[in-house]
């Protein structure tokens, strides 16, 4: 069990700066994020897109912003738990007991949700019947490729993940590659390689088709593909893989007893606290009258939530406001000589 003064959910820009503020005022914190990398939407959705409205930074990309925020955290020791999603938040006396799907448990008086528009999850097939076979014979990622050996695998998608796995699995499996149009968005070399394997009969290619249905009692037996012209084709298959990128979902946060408004969490504007004492929401995921979904607003919200955390983490101490320009305490924490 990890004991910490505050747990931050989300390693996007708001989560990172909130960590900075917590450490600066002398509190410990750890960060959990469902993505396998730090940066949130800035890294996942627009690493190369310039941002023009960060104060005092005329122009920077999502990736540059993330790197700069990480540089600002260098003086501090912060534990990141990536590729982990918070599943459960439970009250335990004056603390929150937080469990992740990676097996970590945290005990903390403060939970700060800096979750953006939710966690990034794989996009799924639309037919409802697909759920029945999910994680048995229908997958959205590959954990152990050996199960596909000698089997028929139907791979859906037009990007690098779909192409890379079609090429890799064609060595030891029968591969069907299905995509909704003729163009592929993967790297040209990968696309060329796939067409070469198709020519050699190693990959069966079906374009302008999409998943229409899955059939099978206990195990998956066949799938129906639907062509743009509505023609249905039935394919025998042992496994199905879908690679349609990631979508943001609120996920388990919806079950924590918080006041939700569509995909956002209601907070006050003094502490950015939710209706649950010690649970805060900052950045894009929080909502209050006048809320702006700007990165700069997330920084402000995180700074105030961090001060609120102090009261619960150090109930017997008084928080004193200090400036980094003059405070010996703060300069020491930042590793600067006076």
């Amino acid at each position, binding site marked *: 069990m990890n004991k910490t003064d505050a747990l931050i959910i989300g390693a996007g820009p708001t989560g990172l700066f909130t960590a900075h503020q917590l450490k600066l005022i002398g509190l410990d914190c750890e960060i959990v994020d469902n993505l396998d990398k730090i940066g949130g*939407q800035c890294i996942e959705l627009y690493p190369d*897109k310039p941002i023009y409205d960060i104060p005092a930074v005329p122009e920077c990309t999502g990736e540059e912003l993330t790197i700069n925020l990480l540089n600002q955290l260098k003086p501090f020791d912060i534990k990141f738990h990536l590729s982990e999603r918070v599943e459960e938040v439970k009250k335990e006396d004056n603390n929150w007991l937080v469990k992740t799907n990676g097996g970590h448990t945290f005990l903390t008086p403060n939970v700060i949700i800096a979750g953006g528009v939710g966690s990034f999850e794989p996009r799924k097939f639309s037919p409802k019947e697909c759920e029945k076979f999910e994680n048995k014979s229908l997958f959205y990622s590959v954990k152990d490729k050996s199960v596909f050996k000698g089997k028929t695998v139907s791979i859906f998608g037009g990007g690098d993940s779909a192409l890379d796995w079609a090429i890799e699995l064609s060595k030891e499996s029968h591969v069907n590659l299905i995509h909704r*149009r003729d*163009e592929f968005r993967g790297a040209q070399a990968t696309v060329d390689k796939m067409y070469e394997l198709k020519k050699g009969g190693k990959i069966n290619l079906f374009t302008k088709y*999409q998943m229409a249905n899955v059939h099978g009692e206990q195990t998956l037996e066949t799938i129906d593909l639907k062509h743009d012209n509505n023609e249905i084709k039935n394919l025998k298959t042992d496994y199905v893989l879908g690679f349609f*990128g990631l*979508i943001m979902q609120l996920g388990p946060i919806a079950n924590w007893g918080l006041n939700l408004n569509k*995909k956002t969490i209601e907070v006050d504007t003094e502490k950015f606290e939710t209706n649950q004492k010690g649970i805060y929401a900052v950045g894009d995921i929080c909502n209050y009258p006048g809320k702006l979904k700007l990165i700069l607003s997330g920084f402000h919200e995180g700074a105030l939530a961090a001060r609120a955390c102090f009261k619960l983490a150090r109930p017997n101490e008084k928080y004193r406001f200090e400036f980094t320009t003059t405070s010996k305490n703060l300069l020491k924490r930042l590793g600067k000589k006076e």
Partner: protein
Amino acid sequence: MEGAVQNDIPGIDADCGGGMACATCHVYVKEDWFNKIPKKEDGEDDMLDMAFEPKTNSRLSCQIIVSDDIDGLEVNIPSKQA
């Protein structure tokens, strides 16, 4: 997309805020309008690959810029965005 979001029209999530980066403002454009509105630019079809039940008349509404030329445009929304 902006028109929908700013007027609380449900069904257009626009999670990424109009950046052609999430495919949650997906719409089906009525057939007779599809060829009248400005064509898709690079990247839009790549994002549409990830949309919920894309069809040949699918567009991302963040890429449809409203002008007098498309006065009367009709679109349908998918049963969900993700």
